[in-house]
């Protein structure tokens, strides 16, 4: 039984995710797997992905992994990354495809007419590079990560959450878009922690330690949770 399963559905570079996890948790058994049984038995699950949404959904179906992702997202500490975050929602403008519908909301393309900064300079799409992530909710996954820390992004589509309470972090490009969402045992990010140097490794180390509870284990004014 693996400590962490990285779901392999044939999309993108999964090696970088597993290498970064091995780097922060060399003592753990980390597997890259497309076997629903391995995913079901793993202690934690990472749902990564780069590429296009229609291909993602097609690959999940054809490999019989759709249900495995849905089940994993119900129970255990679950980290979605990039396309692995977008796929959790109901639908995407990319190829007009349906998502897994685990979380309410939709995935939209950065609108060409809005891509201008305050100085009138054109903003490029894809949004590629290091941008600031603003933490809009307390969460154990943010532990040790400063407000407005920079993470590495590469994407042309973003999540519009159907429930504002889902949003755990946002980024400006040029408007505020969803950079992280959290609900119960699910945490999902638009950026790539595995490619975000020390800050990203801190987040992956937080995931390895996370008990899957949405509350922060920080001592508040009255009581230690």
């Amino acid at each position, binding site marked *: 039984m693996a400590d962490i399963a990285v779901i392999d559905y044939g999309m993108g570079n999964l090696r970088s995710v597993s290498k970064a996890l091995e780097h922060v948790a060399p003592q753990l058994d980390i597997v890259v797997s497309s076997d629903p049984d391995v995913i079901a038995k793993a202690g934690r699950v990472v749902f990564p992905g780069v590429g296009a949404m229609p291909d993602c959904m097609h690959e999940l179906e054809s490999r019989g992994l759709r249900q495995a992702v849905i089940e994993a997202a119900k129970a255990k500490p679950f980290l979605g990354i990039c396309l692995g975050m977008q796929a959790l929602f109901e639908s995407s403008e990319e190829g007009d495809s349906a998502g897994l519908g685990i979380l309410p909301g939709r995935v939209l393309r950065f609108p060409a007419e809005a891509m201008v900064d305050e100085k009138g300079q054109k903003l490029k799409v894809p949004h590629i590079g290091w*941008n600031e992530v603003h933490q809009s909710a307390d969460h154990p996954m943010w532990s040790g990560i400063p407000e407005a820390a*920079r993470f590495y*992004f590469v994407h042309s589509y973003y999540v519009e959450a159907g429930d504002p309470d889902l949003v755990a972090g946002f980024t400006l490009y040029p408007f505020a878009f969803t950079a992280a969402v959290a609900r119960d045992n699910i945490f999902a990010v638009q950026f790539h922690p595995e490619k975000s140097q020390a800050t990203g490794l801190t987040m992956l180390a937080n995931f390895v330690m996370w008990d899957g509870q949405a509350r922060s284990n920080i001592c508040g004014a009255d009581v230690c949770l």
Partner: protein
Amino acid sequence: MGLAKRIIPCLDVTAGRVVKGVNFVGLRDAGDPIEIARRYDEQGADELTFLDITASSDERDIILHIIEEVANQVFIPLTVGGGVRSVDDVRRLLNAGADKVGINTAAVTNPQLVADAASRFGSQCIVVAIDAKQVSAEGEPLLWHVFTHGGRKDTGLDAVEWAKKMESLGAGEILLTSMDRDGTKIGFNLDLTRAVSDAVSVPVIASGGVGNLDHLVDGVKKGHADAVLAASIFHYGEFTVRQAKEHMARNLIEVRL
């Protein structure tokens, strides 16, 4: 505050060593690629680019081992280019740990490769590298052509139009080298950089000719580049990546410090 402009050290690799030439010839050894990659990562490089400049195909596997080793230790985006001719070449590099793959000559000889690779692996990992050189004479309207084969062959293609075509085929980024500047240390070709960057909606990485830190500032401010790439100013210890970023920040360019 928003998206930072990126500084990308470039490592030209042959026979397992980092080298640097002037105008694509006259190579000088700069050290071990893994050691250099780690140093730039520690200095705060935003990404790393590796160009395999090996001539013979039987030495191609060397770059795969280097990328594997770097990807085990360095957790920032890695781009690898040089000699990429097929979707299978792209796959091999991605599997070795590259996040993006640069396609140069093959984009000209077989543009469909860009479309195929983008649709298979996503635009975000396909960087089309364009080597461009000014062909207009003084006083004429500016015109740049795309050159291939390490800058030896004029394709006759207009570099600005070519960049737009590559974007439409699925390139996620353009790596633009002013090849008459490469290794010269006199700065980017700013007219070329601005013309291409303003013509496309994908990010443009400026390359070729950086000799001092003001050149990096100019590339962003005057050339409208989204990222700047440099090799020799970092390889031989003239400047660290951090110094470059601090200089850009002093010039009011947003960087990741």
